[in-house]
């Protein structure tokens, strides 16, 4: 038996002019949970695709438990060596949850598929992760969170001895993450090896023993987690000393001018919510996946039609369910699902970033310079404003969505999970942007469960089953807030 579950050596991978991996390696000891961290675009996901045989590296070799990797064409052999939750969703939307869980092994070892048995197996698997969905429903009808859980459950149930998880937690709420970690630990006890990628560094400390840092397509360091302090880790990732600096906005000047007023708004999955935001105010909105917070935010932006109630910006009422009207009124939005609603993947960064701005003419040079500005101000790792966003790494795509939301200089920002999949350093700068916008007199609603995101807010509203159940002002304690989110508020 070999000591290493997976070894990659001298791996180089180029995409056109982009060098995604530059002669890097990784050695993952059997039985450990190995963290891979690095900034957006560092090459983590590219390494994952090389380790799972989805991409052929330009140079370098991969081996599992001492055996060289199988030929690329032999997908089934790869699958025997490694299971993976990819960063990009790899579900088949039009198939049922049950079938997705057992895709390409629907027969459960028998020759014929027994749909009844499959459904039963799926139901019990879902139960393990407390995913409350019907195994017969189509995956396309699931929420992002549920979909992610299905992918995780699938990867862990295949029975591989080596499992890769590429940012599995980016779309999950606290309890779900905790369940995932429990599961990982118990599998690890049974000898399963993990490669774990996350931008939440505390998760690395929680579940991993070893950490590898990549920066700009290069391998920087591999060390036991216990020997790396958080500032060390951040320094390895960014190449500059200094810890994390999330702005808290304590000293933001406050004002009495109301910018956004929502009065008794009801809609899909929420009812009778009123709130108002003044110039310079950032309101956090927290709650579990089913709390209706996303639907509320989407209604404010016009993506959904309210059943009753009004939204007004600077005193004038905005037509409900009408995105152009919301944009004209000065509401900008980072939608929930960047692949689905955020980006047109085939179009360039410049084009995506300027998509919401008004004006009948598009001057390519102006557009490109707007794109370059966005790349610079949001710290996007890209080869230029003309690069299609499909080529960008996940976190960098998210930054482009942010650039689009802010492009029209809106007076109200609605940001749903604005830092999902964004690396620590970029998160700092994105939240810095939110803070800066507030200082310029904008109002913002930040919908997120990330405590870092909420720290930038002046107050945090917690929603539960469609209504606001609690409000916290600045200075809340983590435990308190989490308890409220989970519906165990003790008012």
């Amino acid at each position, binding site marked *: 038996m070999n000591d290493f579950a997976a070894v990659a050596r001298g791996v180089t991978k180029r995409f056109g002019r982009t060098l995604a991996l530059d002669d890097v390696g990784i050695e993952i000891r059997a039985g450990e949970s190995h963290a891979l961290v690095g900034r957006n675009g560092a090459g983590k996901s590219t390494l994952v695709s090389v380790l*799972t045989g*989805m991409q052929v590296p330009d140079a370098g070799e991969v081996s599992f438990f001492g055996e060289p990797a199988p030929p690329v*064409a032999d*997908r*089934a052999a*790869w*699958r025997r060596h490694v299971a*993976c939750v990819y960063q*990009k*969703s*790899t*579900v*088949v*939307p*039009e*198939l*049922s949850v049950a*079938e997705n869980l057992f*895709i*390409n*092994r*629907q*027969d459960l070892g028998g*020759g*014929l*598929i027994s749909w009844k048995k499959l459904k039963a197996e799926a139901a019990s698997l879902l139960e393990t992760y*407390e995913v*409350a*969905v*019907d*195994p*017969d*429903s*189509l995956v396309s*009808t699931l*929420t992002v*969170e*549920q979909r992610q859980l299905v992918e995780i459950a699938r990867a862990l149930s295949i029975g591989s001895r080596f499992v890769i998880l590429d940012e599995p937690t980016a779309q999950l*709420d*606290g*309890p*779900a*993450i*905790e*369940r995932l970690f429990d599961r990982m630990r118990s599998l690890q006890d049974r000898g399963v090896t993990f490669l774990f990628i996350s931008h*939440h560094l*505390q*998760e690395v400390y*929680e579940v991993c023993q070893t950490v590898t840092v990549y920066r700009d397509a290069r391998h920087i360091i591999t060390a036991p987690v216990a020997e790396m302090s958080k500032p060390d880790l951040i320094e390895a990732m960014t190449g500059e000393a200094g810890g994390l600096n999330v702005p808290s906005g304590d000293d933001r000047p406050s004002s009495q001018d109301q910018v956004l007023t929502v009065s008794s708004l009801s809609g899909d999955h929420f009812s009778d919510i009123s709130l108002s935001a003044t110039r310079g105010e950032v309101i956090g909105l927290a709650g*579990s*996946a*089913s709390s209706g917070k996303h639907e509320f935010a989407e209604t404010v932006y016009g993506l959904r039609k309210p059943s009753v109630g009004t939204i007004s910006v600077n005193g004038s009422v905005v037509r409900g369910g009408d995105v152009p009207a919301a944009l004209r009124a000065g509401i900008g939005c980072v939608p929930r699902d960047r692949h689905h609603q955020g980006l047109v993947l085939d179009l360039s960064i410049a084009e995506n970033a300027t998509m919401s701005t008004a004006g009948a003419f598009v001057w390519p040079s102006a557009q490109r310079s707007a794109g370059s500005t966005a790349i610079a101000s949001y710290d996007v790792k890209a080869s230029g404003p003309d690069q299609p966003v499909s080529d960008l790494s996940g976190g960098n795509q998210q930054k482009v969505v942010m650039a689009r939301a802010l492009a029209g200089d809106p007076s109200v920002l609605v940001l749903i999970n604005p830092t999902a999949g964004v690396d620590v350093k970029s998160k700092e700068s994105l939240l810095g942007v939110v803070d800066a916008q507030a200082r310029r007199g904008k109002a913002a609603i930040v919908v997120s*469960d*990330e405590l*870092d995101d909420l720290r930038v807010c002046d107050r945090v509203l917690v929603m539960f089953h469609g209504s606001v159940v609690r409000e916290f002002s600045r200075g809340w304690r*983590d435990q308190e807030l*989490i*308890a409220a989110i*989970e*519906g165990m508020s003790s008012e």
Partner: protein
Amino acid sequence: MTKAMTPPVSAPTPPGKQKFQFARYQDLALVPVIIILLIIGAVLSPIFLTPGNLIAVLTQQSELSLLVLGQAMILIVGKMDLSLESTVGLAPALAVALIIPASAGGLDVGLAAWMALPLCLLIGVAIGGLNGFLILKVGLSGFMVTLGMLTMLRGLQLAITEGKSLIDVPESFLYLGSTTWLGLPAAVWICVVCYAVGIFVLKYLRAGRSLYAVGGNSEAARAAGIRVDRVVWTVLIIGSVLAVIAGILMTGRLGSVAATQGEGMIFQVFAAAVIGGISLQGGKGTLFGALSGVLMLGLVEQILRLQGVSGFYIKASYGAVIILALIVTRFATGQKQE
């Protein structure tokens, strides 16, 4: 974030049962339409519900149904093959031409007559294989390659036969095209068997399910260990072979290979498949649905035929019926179509 307490509920769970029945219901969306058509037919013409008439409808649709079977699988896997309609003509024409002497319009190669059937099937494999090669290995657009092939194969047939119909058709074709087994034409039996196998494979075999995975999200399929290219290639070949079988049956039924055999069928193939619920985007639909699409079109045609609708109005009526069928299906399934 992280640290959580006890995990309470998430996401309101839909009843589930309902969803499932709905999905099954979609397959059957055309069944009421078919029943209504049968009733309309019976009201309008006394002979409509006679076995003779119904068998005639089935026989007339048998070739189309095989093409639809092939195309449906190809669509499910996320591709298209327009060249099927030319394969219907070319394969029998080429096979026959290789057998008969030049005096009868052949190529004077003089192969034995028993080779007709295997030769035909081989030609089908070759065409499907070539399409697959161009699409998968060379990386050409499937729609365009098969459009080019459609023109080229049809042209090839014209070149081989110099536009003439070949009437010296092998016995084996004639037998298949005209015999009846247990009172039903062989063609109908062949279709029934092909559909039964297809429906079974696509429902109960992993290989069959992989068509949906590949068509629904080929990256996900690849990640799940499915050999995407191999699946697509196989399906393209099967599609071509089914087109060849359709061509053989048509040749046998008509007793000759016309230079235009199969021409114009591809539109009907798409109409039947899509009305039957196959999505052009891939990954969706069932073969049973496709079959009911074929039957629906067949009944409509037969009703128009028995009514003796004037040639001037027949096309307009047919088009109107297609649109009507779409509207009915759309509201029956309650889903927007792709």
